[in-house]
Structure formats: structure tokens, C-alpha cells
């Protein structure tokens, strides 16, 4: 080739679009190779899918298992120990699914709030200038996060809650609450007429606080005068409902529990499974949140703090206006992960018998209907949806908090 043709220098890419292309050249063409590889992958995935589906159909037919989602309308016929929505054993499997889901969301919601509060306290304590407090917080984090959460649940449930006394020897707690092997019983609030006024006052307080905050901000930008809008806002949000509560004549009575011979009557009983799950998950996740908070606050450059002090801001203002907003940017993405982890870990409930989604649906319903594929797919789909929605919400929040670079 070289002998017959004059030597020309071509750009390396020119070969690719050479019009006379032999099949051999195709092997060395990255584009053609890419397409070939992808076709191979797609064909392999489809083949795997077809194989799985055909095997599943044969196996299901052989074992006489129905398929499809019709089972959701059939009568469940089992009881659930905690139901946030109406449910009896004559309800359908579909209803049981919703009961399980609401129970999961209950644990996730309370757990997220509790673990955030504990986690922030411990995380800030780890940065305390007080040596002892910082060390104690450090010991807490290092002990808790190196132990499986399931083990913590077992220890709390079987070794602590299950060894509590029987109902007739209940441990009396303040506020006429009782603790026994059947759970924690607290007075049950019974709302009377006029409670709507308190609710309306709460909403009005929130709206007023937002309006006040906006006004204070505008005035500060215009005149430079500072209005204590945080305290005033808190006073509105808390004060208005309290005022309304007394104006409406205390529209709430409590159904206090009474200790009987065999059981406690009245009151509101929290299942020991729920208590164990909440305590275990909150303590476990809090250890991780504490580390995130510590890293976030430590990640704000020292100069920011010093500059804020140099501007004459007070200690509280430095934290509130300079350090925390910047720390939150570091904190929020990993915090989202921890919230999702807590939600997913709430499925450990199945091990101690709390009726969450996995226990009710992927456990009892699956065993009764044998429709493993549909049940597991629905269960996984729900967790995927929760993950997706949570990360969308947190991404939106994160985008609002993110550094606006000019």
C-alpha cells in the first residue's frame, strides 16, 4: 500500500468515515463495536427475561398457584394487632396492604423525627468544648453504630420489654401512664366540641408567623432594623392555640387507664413491638446522623466563623446565620440517605412481629395466597416509590439550600 500510494497524513478519526469499509474494519470501529455490544446485552437481557417468565409460568402451573392481582379483593381472614385505618378480619387483602403500609409510614415518620432530634443533639455534643460531653457522645456513636440494628431490636424487645411485669403489676409512670409487658398505656385524649377552634388558631398562628417573618425581612433590608421574628413567630404558633384552648373552655378530656386484675382498661396502648422498633431504629440512625452533623459543622471553614464574629454578630447569630446554613448544605444529602435507610430498616419489624408492610403483606398475605411474585413485586415497588419520593423532596430542599454561585 505504502509503495503504490503517496504518503498522506490523515487525522486519526478520518478512517472511521472512510467510504470503502470492509467487514474487517468494522471490528475496529468503536461505534460499530458499541452497537454490537449493546445489541448483545439487550438480547441477553431479553433471553434471561423470557427464560425466567417461562420457568415461572411452568412452575406456577405445576404448583397450582393462581397469578394476577385478583387476590387483592379476596377476604383476608386474619387479624392485625395495630390498625390505623378500619380493618377487621373480613376485610380484603388489599385493605391489609394499606394497614401494613400505614404502620410502616407511622414508624418511619416518628423514627425520622426522633432520630433527627437525638442525632443533632449528639452530633453537636461531639463538638462541645466540654471534654466529658464530647467523649460521652463519641462513646455513644462508636458503640451504637457498630452493632447490627436487628440485635438492638431483639435486645430491647426480648430482653427489656418482654421482661416487664404483667398488667396487674404495671409500672406506674407520671401522667397516669402505665408500662407493662403488653406495652405502654397512656391517657387517651378525647376531643370535645371546640377543638376545631384550637386547630384553626394553630393554622392562623402559622400563617401569621410567615407573614410576620416576611415583613420583618423586608423592614430589615429597607431600614436595617432587626425584629426578633423567630421568637415572635414561635409565640404566635404556640400562643394562639393555647389561648384558643382556654377560650374554648379546655375542649379535651382524657380517658385515663385503670389497672385491672388481668388487663388495663381505657387509655391508648402503644404496642411493645412499636416501642421497641421506634427506640431501636431511632437510637441506631441517630448515631449515623450525629456523625453527619459533626462532619457538616466541622466542614464549615473556620474563617467564616471568625469573619462573622469580626462583623460583630453574637454567638447565636453566628451559628444561626453563618455556620448552620453552610453546614446544612453538607448535611442534607447524607441525611436523606439516613432517612431512607431508616425507612428501609423499618422492615426489620418482621423479626419482632410489628405489623408493618413486610410482616403483614410479604409475610402473612404471601403465606396465605402463595402468590410470591405479585406480593414481593408490590412490596418492593412500595419501597422504591417511598425512596423516590423522599429523594425528590430532599433534592428540592437541597436545591433551595444550595450555594447560589454568581
Amino acid at each position, binding site marked *: 500500500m505504502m509503495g503504490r500510494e503517496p504518503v498522506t497524513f490523515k487525522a486519526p478519526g478520518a478512517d472511521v468515515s472512510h467510504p470503502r469499509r470492509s467487514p474487517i474494519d468494522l471490528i475496529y470501529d468503536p461505534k460499530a463495536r*458499541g452497537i454490537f*455490544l*449493546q445489541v448483545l*446485552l*439487550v438480547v441477553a*437481557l431479553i433471553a434471561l427475561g423470557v427464560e*425466567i417468565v417461562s*420457568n*415461572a409460568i*411452568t*412452575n*406456577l402451573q*405445576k404448583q397450582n398457584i393462581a397469578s394476577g392481582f385478583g387476590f387483592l379483593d379476596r377476604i383476608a381472614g386474619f387479624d392485625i394487632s395495630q390498625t390505623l385505618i378500619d380493618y377487621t378480619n373480613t376485610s380484603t387483602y388489599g385493605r391489609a396492604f394499606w394497614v401494613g403500609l400505614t404502620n410502616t409510614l407511622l414508624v418511619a415518620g416518628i423514627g425520622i423525627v426522633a432520630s433527627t432530634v437525638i442525632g443533632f443533639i449528639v452530633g453537636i455534643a461531639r463538638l*462541645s*468544648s*466540654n*471534654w*466529658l*460531653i464530647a467523649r*460521652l457522645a463519641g462513646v455513644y456513636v*462508636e*458503640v451504637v*453504630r*457498630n*452493632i*447490627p*440494628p*436487628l*440485635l*438492638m431490636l*431483639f*435486645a430491647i424487645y*426480648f*430482653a*427489656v420489654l*418482654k*421482661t416487664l411485669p404483667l398488667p396487674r403489676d404495671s409500672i406506674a409512670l407520671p401522667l397516669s401512664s402505665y408500662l407493662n409487658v403488653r406495652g405502654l398505656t397512656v391517657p387517651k385524649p378525647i376531643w370535645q366540641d371546640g377543638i376545631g377552634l384550637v386547630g384553626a388558631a394553630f393554622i392562623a398562628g402559622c400563617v401569621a408567623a410567615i407573614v410576620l417573618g416576611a415583613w420583618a425581612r423586608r423592614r430589615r433590608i429597607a431600614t436595617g432594623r432587626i425584629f426578633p421574628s423567630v421568637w415572635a413567630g414561635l409565640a404566635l404558633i404556640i400562643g394562639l392555640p393555647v389561648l384558643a384552648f382556654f377560650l374554648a373552655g379546655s375542649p379535651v378530656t382524657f380517658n385515663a387507664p385503670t389497672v385491672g386484675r388481668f388487663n388495663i382498661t381505657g387509655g391508648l396502648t402503644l404496642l411493645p413491638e412499636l416501642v421497641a422498633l421506634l427506640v431501636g431504629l431511632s437510637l441506631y440512625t441517630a448515631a449515623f446522623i450525629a456523625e453527619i452533623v459533626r462532619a457538616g459543622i466541622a466542614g464549615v471553614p473556620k474563617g467564616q466563623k471568625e469573619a462573622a464574629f469580626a462583623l460583630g454578630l453574637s454567638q447565636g447569630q453566628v451559628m444561626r446565620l453563618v455556620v448552620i446554613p453552610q453546614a446544612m448544605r453538607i448535611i442534607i444529602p447524607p441525611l436523606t440517605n439516613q432517612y*431512607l435507610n431508616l425507612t*428501609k*430498616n423499618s*422492615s*426489620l419489624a*418482621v*423479626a419482632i412481629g410489628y405489623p408493618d408492610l*413486610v410482616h403483614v403483606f*410479604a409475610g402473612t398475605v*404471601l403465606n396465605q395466597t402463595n402468590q*410470591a*411474585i405479585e406480593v*414481593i413485586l408490590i*412490596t*418492593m415497588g412500595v*419501597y*422504591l416509590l417511598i*425512596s*423516590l419520593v423522599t429523594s425528590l423532596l430532599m433534592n428540592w430542599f437541597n436545591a433551595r439550600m444550595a450555594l447560589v454561585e454568581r
Partner: protein
Amino acid sequence: MGAGGDMEQAGGKRATPMRPPPAGAGPIAWVKTNLFSSPLNAALTVLGLWVAWIVVHALVDWAFVRAVYVGADGSACTKEGAGACWPFITAKLDQFIYGRYPDAERWRANLTFALFALGLAGVMIPGVPRKGWIAAFLLIVFPVIAYYLLTGGVFGLATVETERWGGLLVTLVVAVVGIVASFPIAVALALGRRSRLPFVRYASIGFIEFVRGVPLITMLFMASVMLPLFLPDGVTFDKLLRALIGVALFEGAYLAEVIRGGLQAIPRGQYEAADALGLSYPQKMGLIVLPQALKLVIPGIVNSFIALFKDTSLVLIIGLFDLLGIVQQAISSDAKWFSPSTPLTGYVFAGFVFWIFCFGMSRYAQWIERRLSGTDRR
């Protein structure tokens, strides 16, 4: 200004000896600055001392002072105010380590543990020569040896069904097999997620995000309930193997994200230089990019191994007996050792074993991280 004053003084009469500056060192100054710098801090210190005293006192009292050390069964621990029931642990220790692995064959499990510890020490301790060969032994030769040692059936070794495995043995098998088997999956997924080819990329993203969005329990349920339905008629899997498949797929997705972090940290110039040298894709990744990326993410890999090690306890939900599972079984179904303090003793023991492993590994990850950042700074 102060110095000028001193000079004048020195010029006139003999300087009066000045008091030393307030002690900045010494135990009393340390206590002052670190524990009692303000009234609030003083109050916090007192509160902290009180909490520490309560916790330490309760722990020592339960674990040592009121503990029962000898006894043949649970009746020794049922006396009023008894603390930890240590004879329960000593009597069951073998079971907690090996499960129902036959007594006569336990040397095989021990030999596997020892080989693994030896190989791991070779890889983890810096300065040991021929790290590559040790790693190859650990990743390729050791699994084969361990498989035949533990299951038997060859060279005159008696077969031990996996139903008889249990305790720490299962915990370690699930964790180690999980991480080793998930590694190639994770590398493939991480490379796939950064691929230019859209189908490869979306398939990888889909798998990773799906697995990371669901709890491990549902993956285990899927592996134990759905997998048998997907296989051709007559093909059955061992229960342990099914759990291992679930764990490997799960861990693969998490590890893929760790490795992707490493891939993203490699400067573009490295990729471009490899292209300029005319290296093929496998050569570029295998010889240039991955060695650097994997070195960067060693701490991340150790951390996800810690998470996996803790997560192995979930296999008890699908009926395997790992360390926690076997402790739980001994507590709940062994009437001989029934006593009020047995459960807590068992959980504290299991928690302590898990804690030792996880804490040790996390300290190792931190140490490696410091070493790596040290080499980078030079």
C-alpha cells in the same frame, strides 16, 4: 509597651520578679478549660459525670458484681437479683461459633478461619512483600479451598450439609462471600454506569437504583421465595446459596456506587493518556484507571463491608442461623437455660462479638485513610 516598661524598670532598680503567667498546662488548668469554663459547662460536666456513673455502675454491677459465673443450667441464674448468666455463654460457645457443625469436623472450620486470617493479615498489613500474590490467593485459591474444606465430599472429607452450619461461621461465610462475589458485579456496574453506551448505562443505573431502593429483607425474600420459581423445573438451590445470591446482588449495587466515586476521582488526563497510548478499553480500565480508583476507595470498601457484616444478621429472617440467629434460638427455645437474665446475656455477648469486628474494621479504614491521604500530600 509592656516590654518598654520592663526595660525602664531594669534600668532603674532591680526588677521585682513577676508572677508566671496563669498555668496553661497541668491537670488543674486542663480541667478548668475543658470541663468548667462556664457555668453551663460546669452543669453539663456534672450531668455527664452522673450519666457516666449510672451507665458504668449498672454495667459493672450487672456484668461482674451480680453475675453468675458457674452453673449447669438456667436455675443457677434464676435467683433474685442475678446479673449476667455467663455459664450460658460458656456452655453454648461452641454452638455460637460453629452452629450444628459436627464436633469431629470442626477442625475444618478452624483451618478455614486460620487460612483466611493469615491471608487477610498479609493483605492488610503494609510492608508485607508480594501483596499481589497474597491477594490472588485470597480471592481465587482460598475460596476453592474453603468451599471443599467446609462442605467436604472430596479427599475423604465427610460431607457437611449447609443446614448444619451456623453461628459465627455462617456470619463470616455470608459476609466474606457477599463481598468477594459482589466485587466483580460492582466493578461491572460501576463501569457500566459511566459507559458511553446508553443501553449499558441505563441497564446499570436501573439495577443499582432498584436494589438501593428496596430493603435487604425484600431482596432476601426474593432470593428465597421467588428465585426457585424462576429456575427450570428440578433445579434447586441450597438455602444458604440462595441467601448468598441475594446478598451478593444487594452488596454489588452498594459497592458499585463506592467504586464509581473512585472512578470519578481519577483525573480525565489519565483516561486520555491511556487512549493516547493506544490501549484498548479493558487495558485502559484494568491497567490504568481501576488500580488507581480502587486504591482510593479502600476505606469506602471497608465501610460497606462493615455494613454488610451487620446486615448478615438479617438472614435469620429467612431461616438461616447466623451468630444472632443461633443466639436467638438458644434463648427462645432452649428450656434448659431459661432464666430472666439469659436473653440479655446472650444479646450482650452477640453484640460484643459484632462490635469487636465492626469497630476493628472501622479503625482500620480510618488508619488506611490517613495513610493514603499522607502519601497523596507528599
